[in-house]
């Protein structure tokens, strides 16, 4: 079964292939239940007949009770079984949807890159999420509905024939007519439906156009022109919709009409037969109710037919779109993945995509294992494409690429990922931690069963080494320093950090005092929040935590008693309005919210609050809303949140409040706060703030570097640097890595490939987004650590870093213009010389 599935690509599977695949047992069970149900449905009819003919006519109470009992049981049973069928049907449908979604997604990820260039992500999303659902539902029904209803129909029809063949034949004669006429009507309805879809699309693009060009419409006063276009389309759509519905209801009405025609036939013919004594009265009653019961299964079959039409249209439309084959096998068939040598041979290579333009034209060169090649040339010369062809990202259309004497186009993806590392120009970072991203390439190497995990996965030391090599180490250390450590888990670390704090103040306190605002009992701290300024301590009880403080009754009373509540609410209201005004339409990217007292998740509720504040007064707000405003005010940090200012008056009130708060808390809630002291670790502040015993004031990268350099020294002395880097590796990089800078993302992408230690490394302008220093660092890493060990093909834009490469190849218009050592090429005064001097 599994093998057969592997052979037929998911996009070519028929809709019906999903009906049994993976659901065999459930479907068989379903059919058995259906058979019982059908029997339970026919039984009451027979009972009905016997009640009239035997029990009532012969006036036998015991028979009446018996037949009625059986009737009741049958009704119960068929109701209960129907429920069971529905459940099974849902389970099968959902499983089919899930299987389709999974298989299609797995398939889509393997499709050639060229496919994605033409495809909108939204299209893939809606295909996977919405379109397949109706097909899945249909699969759920595919057996249950037709089998149930056809069997029911046959059972009732059989029963009718058993009662009276002539009458049965006459009353069933309408169905062939319906079966003949219905598809014709449906076809017309389908045609109208397609027209409807097309016109609706036209309408929406017209609306989009006029909204985008609204300034032009208003500027020219061209309302009537646009109105006319729009009105015409609307009218057309109205007509189409009316006709469409005309057919749809026509089908229903037509069906109903024929169904109600058949009792008429029964009365005429059955009545005649009964009068003549050829038919018992009980049989006529049974006949009538059996005939009536034909209606439901029939209607369900018609509905089934319609949903089949809809489902197959959406299913095949979707699948058609993805009906492409991956260019390479994922796993090698019938052999182990190759362990390739690092030599590279490119011969008469060309690449000509469907557009018909040769992007790579007859390129030939070779590299020995461990040799480094720089690929240069103007943008558009094909150097990236060449690298991508070698890396199996594009399938070359002519010539050969041999890696370790194996033709690349014949290798499986697994062979490639085991031996080759690729860093792209625009590396992508996935949501998760630094560590997860760092291990991304290595994890992909692990076999599916995880058997070789220990061999493939790097150690912590390996990871730290790579972080250092790529220059990410300080960044990760920084993330670690900004982390808040857990009181329970890290007691020892707290003590070590206090020692670091002491040394920091001794050695650098004076020098850095200008850039760090130290915690000081007597000063207002501009880089700390109002909460921190008021409490000047770390909470020890959950009811006083940052999450709960604004709701805390004691705290609220304290604010009122000290005349703080009104100024704080005023501040919070202003803060809310200003912040919402700035951030209202920005996406939930971390970067936009760094300088905001309102987080991206909270923005929507504060939007509502800001709108309320426009209409009503502060004191008219509900207590919930006032608390929200208080919450934002308590977070306000003048040095960070620049949208409002803190008045001198409030500043003094808070400073006064700080003293009072300490007195009161010490008296009534001892232990609720541990007040900041030089000798204590503060567990609700970051490691960095603890070392400072304060907060940094500067964003200037030069000064920050200076501060971190001084701290690193102290951390090494205390031997906790690795521990902090390890904490830093747990840092969550955000969706698509949006909490990292562009440079950090690129370094992370290089680090994750280096960690894999590939034999062949392709870097497609991998360092172009980095600053000079980082670029130089990676360059020297390549020269010292990788030369002679890994074969490297580096696509390079900047010409000042290629001198030390073993070979330089210059591309022009898809052709290899020249190749040789840097000195040779410069001497020959060819293309490279031109490029260099032209640049300079």
């Amino acid at each position: 079964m599994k093998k057969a599935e592997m052979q037929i690509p998911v996009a070519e599977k028929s809709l019906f292939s999903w009906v049994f695949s993976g659901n065999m047992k459930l479907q068989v069970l379903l059919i058995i239940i259906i058979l019982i149900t059908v029997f339970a449905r026919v039984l009451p009819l027979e009972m009905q007949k016997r009640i009239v003919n035997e029990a009532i006519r012969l006036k036998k109470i015991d028979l009446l009770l018996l037949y009625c009992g059986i009737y009741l049981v049958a009704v119960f049973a068929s109701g209960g079984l129907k429920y069971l069928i529905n459940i099974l049907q849902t389970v099968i449908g959902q499983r089919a949807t899930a299987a389709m979604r999974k298989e299609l997604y797995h398939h889509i990820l393997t499709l050639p890159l060229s496919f994605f260039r033409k495809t909108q992500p939204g299209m893939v999303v809606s295909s996977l999420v919405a379109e397949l659902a109706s097909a899945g539902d249909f699969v759920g029904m595919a057996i249950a509905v037709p089998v149930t209803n056809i069997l029911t129909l046959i059972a009732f029809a059989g029963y009718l024939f058993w009662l009276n063949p002539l009458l049965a034949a006459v009353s069933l004669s309408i169905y062939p007519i319906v079966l003949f006429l219905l598809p014709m009507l449906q076809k017309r309805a389908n045609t109208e439906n397609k027209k409807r879809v097309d016109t609706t699309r036209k309408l929406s693009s017209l609306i989009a156009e006029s909204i985008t060009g609204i300034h032009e419409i208003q500027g020219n006063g061209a309302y009537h022109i646009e109105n006319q276009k729009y009105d015409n389309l609307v009218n057309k759509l109205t007509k189409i919709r009316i006709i469409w519905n005309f057919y749809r209801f026509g089908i229903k009405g037509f069906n109903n009409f024929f169904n109600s025609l058949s009792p008429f036939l029964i009365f005429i013919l059955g009545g005649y037969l009964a009068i003549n004594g050829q038919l018992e009265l009980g049989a006529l009653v049974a006949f009538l109710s059996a005939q009536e019961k034909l209606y439901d299964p029939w209607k369900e079959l018609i509905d089934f037919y319609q949903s089949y039409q809809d489902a197959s249209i959406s299913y095949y439309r979707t699948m058609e779109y993805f009906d492409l084959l991956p260019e390479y096998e994922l796993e090698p068939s019938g052999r182990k993945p190759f362990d390739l040598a690092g030599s590279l041979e490119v011969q008469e290579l060309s690449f000509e995509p469907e557009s018909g333009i040769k992007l790579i034209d007859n390129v030939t060169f070779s590299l020995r294992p461990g040799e480094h090649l720089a690929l240069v040339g103007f943008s558009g010369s094909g150097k990236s494409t060449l690298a991508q062809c070698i890396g199996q990202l594009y399938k070359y259309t002519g010539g050969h690429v041999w890696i370790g004497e194996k033709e690349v186009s014949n290798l499986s993806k697994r062979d490639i990922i085991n031996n080759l590392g690729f860093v792209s120009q625009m590396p992508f970072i996935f949501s998760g931690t630094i560590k997860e991203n760092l291990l991304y390439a290595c994890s992909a190497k692990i076999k599916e069963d995880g058997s070789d995990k220990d061999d493939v996965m790097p150690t912590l030391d390996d990871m730290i080494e790579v972080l250092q090599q790529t220059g990410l180490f300080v960044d990760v250390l920084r993330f670690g320093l900004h982390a808040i450590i857990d009181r329970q888990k890290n007691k020892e670390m707290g003590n070590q950090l206090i020692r670091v704090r002491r040394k920091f103040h001794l050695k650098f306190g004076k020098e850095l005092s200008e850039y760090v605002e130290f915690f000081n009992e007597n000063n207002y701290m501009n880089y700390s929040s109002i909460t921190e300024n008021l409490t000047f301590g770390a909470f020890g009880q959950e009811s006083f935590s940052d999450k709960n403080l604004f709701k805390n009754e004691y705290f609220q009373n304290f604010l009122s008693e000290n005349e703080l509540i009104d100024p704080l609410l005023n501040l919070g209201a202003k803060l809310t309005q200003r912040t919402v005004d700035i951030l209202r339409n920005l996406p939930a990217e971390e970067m936009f919210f760094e300088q905001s007292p309102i987080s991206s998740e909270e923005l929507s509720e504060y939007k509502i609050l800001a709108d309320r504040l426009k209409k009503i007064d502060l004191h008219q707000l509900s207590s919930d809303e006032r608390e929200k405003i208080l919450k934002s005010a308590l977070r306000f940090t003048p040095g960070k949140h620049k949208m409002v200012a803190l008045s001198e008056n409030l500043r003094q009130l808070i400073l006064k409040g700080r003293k009072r708060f300490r007195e009161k808390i010490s008296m009534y809630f001892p232990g609720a706060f541990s007040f900041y002291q030089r000798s204590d670790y503060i567990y609700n502040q970051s490691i960095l703030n603890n070392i400072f015993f304060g907060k940094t004031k500067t964003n200037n990268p030069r000064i920050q570097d200076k501060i971190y350099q001084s701290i690193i020294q102290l951390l090494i002395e205390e031997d906790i640097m690795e521990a902090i880097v390890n904490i830093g590796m747990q840092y969550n990089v955000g969706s698509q890595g949006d909490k990292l800078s562009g440079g950090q993302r690129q370094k992370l992408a290089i680090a994750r490939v280096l960690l894999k230690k590939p034999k062949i490394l392709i870097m497609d302008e991998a360092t172009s987004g980095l600053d000079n220093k980082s670029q130089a660092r990676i360059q020297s890493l390549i020269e010292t650590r990788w030369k002679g060990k890994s074969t490297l093909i580096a696509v390079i834009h900047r010409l000042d870093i290629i001198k030390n490469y073993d070979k330089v190849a210059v591309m022009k218009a898809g052709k290899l213009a020249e190749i040789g050592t840097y000195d040779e090429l410069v001497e020959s005064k060819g293309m490279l010389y031109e490029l260099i001097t032209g640049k300079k």
Partner: protein
Amino acid sequence: MSLSPEKNKECQACEFEENIEILREIYFFSGLPMEVLKVLAYLCNRETFKQNDYLFQKDDDDSQAFYIITGKCGLLYTNRESELLIREYGQGEFLGGLALLGNLPRLYSLKALSALSCLILDRDKFSRAMQQFPELIPKMFKGVVRRIYAWENRLLVDYSACCESCKELIGVSVL
């Protein structure tokens, strides 16, 4: 950031609004609607520098633009240990707009000639903000192109044919 506390208070009363006013005056941003200016004014930072601090140095890729609020700084060309002062920038001047648009390792150094307070915007923030308003990017490019054109036009007016060897180097506006 090292402003004395008293001074800080005054400034903070209006920092965000001040930033908006500043951005409106700069050619680079002046074409942008208020909605965008607000976002950029919010994303800006203020920094202070001591005399002789470098704002950036040759080969740095700091990708920042500076507006000088108070003080003076000098653009230096570093050539084999010697520093040549190209020109001075003072209060109200803006520089570094091109660094917001793309990678631009510095060819010069910028050094504070007195205590200096600047408004700074960096490329990462700027470009992520502008991604939200893609329709405005062409507008911004127009401003830059006009500026480059005006620059070279001015150069040609002053240019005298005596500098034969410079001839090769002019013509940046026909790039």
